Every structure is written in structure tokens, then in C-alpha cells.
């Protein structure tokens, strides 16, 4: 296989990884029936805190791995804290989850800029690339999938665990039930709101890890304005595009990253026939188009073109129905 293509695909995988982790975290949250709309701000704040924690730890003389671990841990805690506020506001205090999430996304982004103002554009510790022994030697896929930082391998494990948990365990059945039919789950003895707290916080912690994946690996350091602005919204859209299914979410994130890689390659080559600034519109056009595509109306019309035998399978594969109780409150 062409090594240029392999390198490009390798970059796509690493660029997509924070999106994958954040979108899987949000999938876990939304499958439980809670919307965490604070992603864009949470990513920025956890990226800033993760970087500053790792930077400060390194300056105080601890070894690089410990500093990095501290950075990721504090980023995860920040993400979890944001999610806790949403769960508390949305579940216990009966506020609108979307409102609390939106306020938090603005507040967290501003907090990140304000508290991070003295830490912009300074070098700090970063996660190294660690090829996986043996697997990296696999033909074709080895160099694409297994020459990365720990964040990427974490995203693979997370993907498998997410899927297995949601669709192959009793606990996952309860998890999906509180997002689909909380009343039935409650009647079966499931602690709906307790579990909603748990999955919201867990999903938020993963968003925090995704923030750290930006500031400690993909785009090392902290900048003002942060380079990941907008990615939180894209992650939220990917969850919808992914139909709340871990594998499709991963696919969505990779497609997005591929599109961006294409756009920036076109920008570099400088000869594409349209003004370069306009290439920045591609991810957002793609966001609208994919959301149009998965919304049932358009998809149904397209599916009718297919032969009847494949229609149902294609529908099951492509349909994107949100958890039925998404964003609603449950009062036992």
C-alpha cells in the first residue's frame, strides 16, 4: 500500500480520536436519556485544565508519565464536574437540561480562556507515539491503526467496551431502558435517576479525557482562542449521525476527520479552484448534510429506491432514532 496514503489515514485516525472519545462519552450519556449540551465548552475547559495540571506537575519535578497522568485525571474530573452540574440541574432540580448545558458551554469556554490566559503558547509535556508491538507489523492496517499515542488505543478499547456493555450485558439493557422507557425500567426495579447520574458523569469524564487528548497530544498546549472550538458541536452532531450506536459514532468521527484532512490538504496544495478560506465551510456543510440524511424523511425516500429485500436491513443500518426519553425528566 502507498505509504503516503497510509500516513494520511494514520493522521485521520489520530485527528479523529478526541472526537471519538467525546462522542462515545456523549453516547453513553444520551443512551441514559440525558443530553449534555456543554461539550464545546467542556472540551475547552478540560483541555486547558489538563494541560496546566500536567505542565505544573512537570515543573514541580515529577516524571513525565506521572505529570501526564495527572493532566488526564484532572481533565476527566473537570468533564465529570460539568456533567454533574447538568445531572443535578436536570434531574434533581428539574431544570431544562438543554438550558443548563448551553449556559455551561458558554461559561466553561470563557472560564478556560480566563484562567488559561497566562498559559497560552508555552510548551508542556505531551503523549509520545507508542507503536503496539507485533500489531504495528500487520500488513496495510498495522501502520494505520497501531502507531499512535495511548489516547488512540484508549478509544479502541472504549469502543469495544461501549458496544459490549450496551448490547451484550444485563447492565447495558437497563442502561438503554432508562433512556427509552424509564417508567418500565423503574417498574422492574431499576434506579432510573441514580443510573442517569452515573452515566451522565461517566460520559462527562470521557469528554474531559477527550479535552486532554487535544491539549496533551493532538494540538499540544493551550491557545486563545482554543483550537478545538466547534469540535464539541461536531461531536454532538456525530452522536446523532451515529444513531447512538458506538460503531457508527466511530465511523462518523473518522469520516469527519477524513473530510477535514481532505480540506486541509486542498488548502496546502493551494490549487483547488475555489478560495481557500471557503474550505473551512466543508465540515459545517457536512454537518448539515449528514443530519439531513439521517433524519427519517429524507432517508425513507432514498430507501424506497432500493429493492424491497434489502430495504429493511438498510433501514436498520442507517436509521437514526434518538432514545425515546432523551432530554425528558423522570419522576418516580
Amino acid at each position: 500500500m502507498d505509504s503516503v496514503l497510509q500516513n494520511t489515514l494514520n493522521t485521520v485516525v489520530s485527528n479523529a480520536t478526541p472526537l471519538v472519545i467525546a462522542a462515545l462519552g456523549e453516547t453513553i450519556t444520551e443512551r441514559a436519556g440525558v443530553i449534555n449540551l456543554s461539550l464545546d465548552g467542556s472540551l475547552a475547559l478540560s483541555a486547558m485544565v489538563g494541560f496546566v495540571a500536567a505542565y505544573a506537575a512537570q515543573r514541580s519535578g515529577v516524571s513525565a508519565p506521572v505529570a501526564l497522568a495527572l493532566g488526564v485525571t484532572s481533565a476527566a474530573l473537570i468533564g465529570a464536574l460539568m456533567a454533574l452540574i447538568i445531572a443535578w440541574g436536570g434531574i434533581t432540580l428539574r431544570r431544562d437540561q438543554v438550558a443548563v448545558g448551553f449556559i455551561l458551554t458558554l461559561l466553561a469556554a470563557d472560564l478556560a480562556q480566563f484562567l488559561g490566559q497566562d498559559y497560552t503558547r508555552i510548551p508542556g509535556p505531551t503523549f509520545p507515539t507508542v507503536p503496539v508491538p507485533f500489531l504495528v507489523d500487520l500488513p496495510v492496517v498495522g501502520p494505520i491503526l497501531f502507531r499512535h499515542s495511548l489516547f488512540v488505543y484508549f478509544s479502541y478499547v472504549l469502543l469495544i467496551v461501549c458496544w459490549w456493555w450496551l448490547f451484550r450485558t444485563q447492565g447495558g439493557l437497563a442502561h438503554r431502558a432508562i433512556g427509552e422507557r424509564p417508567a418500565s425500567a423503574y417498574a422492574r426495579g431499576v434506579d432510573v435517576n441514580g443510573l442517569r447520574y452515573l452515566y451522565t458523569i461517566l460520559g462527562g469524564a470521557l469528554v474531559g479525557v477527550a479535552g486532554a487528548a487535544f491539549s496533551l497530544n493532538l494540538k499540544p498546549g493551550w491557545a486563545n482562542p482554543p483550537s478545538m472550538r466547534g469540535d464539541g458541536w461536531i461531536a454532538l452532531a456525530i452522536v446523532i449521525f451515529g444513531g447512538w450506536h458506538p460503531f457508527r459514532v466511530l465511523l462518523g468521527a473518522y469520516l469527519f476527520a477524513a473530510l477535514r484532512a481532505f480540506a486541509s490538504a486542498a488548502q496546502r496544495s493551494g490549487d483547488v479552484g475555489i478560495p481557500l478560506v471557503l474550505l473551512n465551510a466543508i465540515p459545517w456543510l457536512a454537518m448539515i448534510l449528514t443530519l439531513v440524511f439521517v433524519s427519517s424523511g429524507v432517508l425513507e425516500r432514498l430507501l424506497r429506491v432500493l429493492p424491497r429485500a434489502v430495504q429493511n436491513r438498510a433501514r436498520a443500518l442507517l436509521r437514526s432514532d434518538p432514545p425515546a426519553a432523551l432530554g425528558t425528566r423522570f419522576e418516580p
Partner: protein
Amino acid sequence: MRAWRDFVFGLLPISFSLLVTALLIVLVGKDPLEVARVLWSGAFGTSETLASVVNFWIPLTLAALGLVVTFRAGLWNIGVEGQIMIGAVAASGVALYVKGLPSPLLIGLSMAAAVMAGALLGALIGFLKLRLGVNEIFGGVALNALVNVASIYLISGPWQPAEGGSAQATSPFPMDARLPLISPIFPTSLLMLVLTVLAIGLIIRLLSGTRWGLQLKAVGKNPRSALLLGVPTGRSVFSALALCGLLAGLGGAHRVLDTYYSLRPLVSGGIGFLALLVVLLAAMRALWAPLIAFVFAAILGGTTRVRIRLQLDPSLAGVLQGLIVLTVVLFQGIRERYFAHHDESIEEKV
């Protein structure tokens, strides 16, 4: 007893937000009292600073009024930021390229272009939602980004003067295209002030005194039963978004025809997002929104001076505003959750 409790619950979240903000200022190594002093004088120190507060208040209030309408219809119009921006872009296009008109006509045409562009963008979000099934939050976020890309493209490319300019802004508008100022020491536009005050009255009237306002409320409360009762829900959603876009577009025109006199990147400056916070804090009431908008505009105006004098990042304004809204919303919840029972029992005894 009840009034006292109301007072405490009103004051607690504000004091809490101020306290947290003060702690954060200490955390970045500045004196909060000094910041407060500079913030106050930056907002109310002179007639010029007061005018700059008014210049924030006008677009903020217009956008907030529009959002009161969309919230009434149960819509999260995050696209308001882009609607301000596209209004500014449209007004700039007219101001830069229409020649030979007398000043009042030119300004009128600029504003007309701005409100049309804003209304069309609002309607586009409605179209995406109703016809193509794209939730208005995501449609709005994507359109905001697209308008931003388009404005940067125009500024850095086609709207650059032939003799060369800067990528930071278009060339300044001709004098005829600029809104006349009340006075050099109070530089803001009387016309825009009057229009904003008229808009406040108009929106209050529309929402509480017309069939349209009532239908909007029905759609917001329960779209399904509204539809079953014969309310044209689609038309309500469209008209709410278009009206919001219209008002936001007018606010965008103010940003370029009064404040900047040129088109810059990020010309909307987060005012649309801030307007969402204003309306959340006003609990969606049209009467409260302009008052809260004034307080937030003062914080914005004052922060400009804090940045220059004390080298503090201007995100300070957003931190304080965000904290206030978050704590007010959460405190309402705490009150209903933990104190509602006591209130009722007191009422019964009295």
C-alpha cells in the same frame, strides 16, 4: 416573610456569582476591588463610556427580543449569532457598494438589507427543521459557522479595496452610510435607540395581545395538541424564527453602521449567545430582557477598560455573566425543590 425570602433568593445567586468571580480574579493574580472599580468607570465613568454601553445594549436587546419570540414557540435559536452577523454583512455590502444615494436612503437601504438577510437566515433554520428534520440547535450552530466563514471570505477577498487593505477589516464606510450620532460626547445613534424602544413595545404587544402570540405560546407549550387544535404550527415556527432573524439582523446593522463603520471578522462578538443568556435570565419575559441586557451591556462595556488598564482577558465578562445565569437558574431549582413546601405551609397559616 415571603417577601423577605424572595429577596434573599434573588440576591443569593448574584452575590454567589460575584464572590466566585472575585476568587477567580484573585486566582489570576489581580485585585478584585480594583477590577470592580475599573469595570464601573469603564461603563459609567464618562458619557462616552455610557454610549459604548448603549451601543452594546442596542443589538443585545434586539436579539434578546427576537429570542423571547422563538423561546415562546419552544425553539432554541442558537443561530441568532449568525443572524446578527449576516445582518452586519448585508448592511456592509450596501454601505460599501451602493453609490449616489442621499444619506438617509442609503442608511435605510442598508438596514433593510440587514433585516431581510437576518430574516431569511432565520427562516432557513425553520426550513431545515420543518422540512429536513435538522434540529434548530444544530442547524443554528452550523449556519453560524458558515456565515462566519463567508464573512471572513468577503473581508479577506472580494471586499478588499483594489488598492490593497488589511485582512482585519473592510475599508471604512463612506460618511453618508454611517448612522448620525446624538453628539460627539455621546456617540450613539438616536434612530437605533428609538427603533429598539419601539421593538420592545412591539414584541410585548405581539406576544400578549394578538392571536399570533397566543398561537406561538400554544406551539411552545405543546406542539402536538396545538396542531390538533388547528394552530398552523409550521407557520408559527417559521414566522418566529424569521422575526427573530429580522431583529437580530437590525442589531447586526447597528454593529457596522454605528459601532465599527467597517465589517470585521466575528463582528457579532458573541452578542447573540449573550442574548440567549439574557433571555434565560429574564425567564423569557419581554419586559425584563431589556433591563437585564443593560446590566450585561454594562459588564461588556466596562470589561473593555479592564482589559486595557489591568491586562485581564475580556472573557472575564462572559465568566461573570455565565455564572450569574447558571446560579440563578440552579437557585430557582433549589428553591422549588427544597423550599416550596415551606412556602405553601406558610401561606396556609396566614
